[in-house]
């Protein structure tokens, strides 16, 4: 091997090393860290007076919205408000007694079962307790 070739290789090697030192942190930096979300099991979703019979309210349940429904016959229901189709937030149509997703016209019944439109699976149901003035929503035990 000629001296010139050897030097050429040495420079390439140094360049690759330097490039590696720059590119490795860069590649690592571009990937966002995975932070485990604190699991929310129980929240005070509303005060009793906030939601009249026939009304509903969405509330933060961890990082995702939940929906709290106060039916005309005074039952409290809570479900995940994230549509199982493409993740829009659903709402309650009291006239139809249905949960409706406005994005693609998906319907769920009050048990969360997907009854028409594109949603592929039911909404997750939560357990509701009324304690004094607080309406408390809890994840159902697995």
């Amino acid at each position, binding site marked *: 091997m000629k001296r010139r070739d050897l030097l050429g290789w040495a420079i390439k090697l140094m360049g690759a090393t330097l490039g590696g030192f720059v590119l490795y*942190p*860069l590649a*690592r*930096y*571009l*990937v*966002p*860290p995975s*932070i485990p979300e604190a699991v929310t099991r129980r929240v005070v979703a509303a005060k009793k007076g906030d939601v009249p019979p026939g009304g509903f309210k969405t509330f933060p349940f961890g990082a995702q919205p939940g929906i709290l429904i106060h039916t005309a016959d005074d039952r409290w229901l809570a479900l995940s408000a994230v549509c199982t189709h493409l993740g829009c937030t659903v709402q309650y149509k009291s006239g139809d007694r249905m949960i409706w997703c406005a994005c693609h016209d998906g319907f769920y019944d009050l048990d969360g079962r997907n009854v028409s439109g594109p949603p592929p699976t039911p909404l997750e149901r939560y357990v509701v307790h009324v304690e004094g003035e607080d309406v408390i929503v809890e994840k159902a035990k697995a």
Partner: protein
Amino acid sequence: MNRLHEWLRDRLGLEALQHVADKKDVPVHRHSFWYYWGGMTLFLFGIQVATGILLLLYYRASADEAYESVRFLMTQVSFGWLIRSIHSWSANLMIGAAMVHMFSAFLLKAYRAPREATWLSGMVLLGLSLAFGFSGYLLPWNELAFFATKVGTDITGAVPVIGPFMLRFLRGGEHITGGTLTRFFGFHVAILPAVTTVILGVHLYLVMRHGMSVPPSVEGRTPPPPRMKFVPNFLLRDMVGWLAALALLALLAALFPWELGLKADPYAPAPAGIKPEWYFGWMFQTLRVLPAHILGVEGELVGILGIGLGGVVWLLVPFLDDPRGQGPRARFWRWLGVVAIIYVVVFTLLVYRGAKP
């Protein structure tokens, strides 16, 4: 490989670029060392652009989230501390390199005809760099940044006639709020980069057009100084300097990571020992040593006007100095430059001595 090169050559007009590269050369004489500082500033600017874009991926420009997003970046994101630290250190080194570039151009009288516009565009670029520094400083929304911005914008507000308007314009209102942060963010990542790109293009075009200036002490000599090809000879030497700068940056960023400090609290008192970034230090110190009143006028106002006037004279020196770079007028301006450098250096150092009037 050859076919790819031919394909590109036919489409991009690479011969023209090759021709420009072949034509450019650099005079070799005992002051040639100072030719490297413009390229050094440009290299560090490149680092700023690259790391700045990376910081944008995690930064959130709002008073509620800015500090937390930078803390997240520094504590959770892989190498986030490194990217931020390099951005901060490189900013300081870049302004340092730009100052060396400016003062050496001044003392070597590189601003003489036909390079007046090169000098003017360079001064604008230095002003833009300072504006980058000032606007970027606020973005982490920490205590020091908050008060530095308060003081800096207050100084602008003291300028006669346009001051009050400028203060409102900079702050986006009377006070420093989340609105100020949004504005500074906009200045820092959109307006200043856009303006800088244009002015930098002009500056580099002018450097290409007029070639390197030869100082008066070398100019008249026979035979004229030898010349070195820019590509590859000078460029390779440039790159050795860049590699050294990169090593220094890595060292500084790793050994002295840039701190985040405490979150800004608009209702808390200013912390003790607060001072601006070093490149504003000489102005800060000048204002600090002036008495409250000078001949019945507010000392602060005299200082601001004096610094402003000095800046205008410095800017216009290509039109005031002797175009031959020789004779008594040329000597006067050279000595004035030396005095200015000594003043800036001494007053900058005084900031760190904690000197008080």
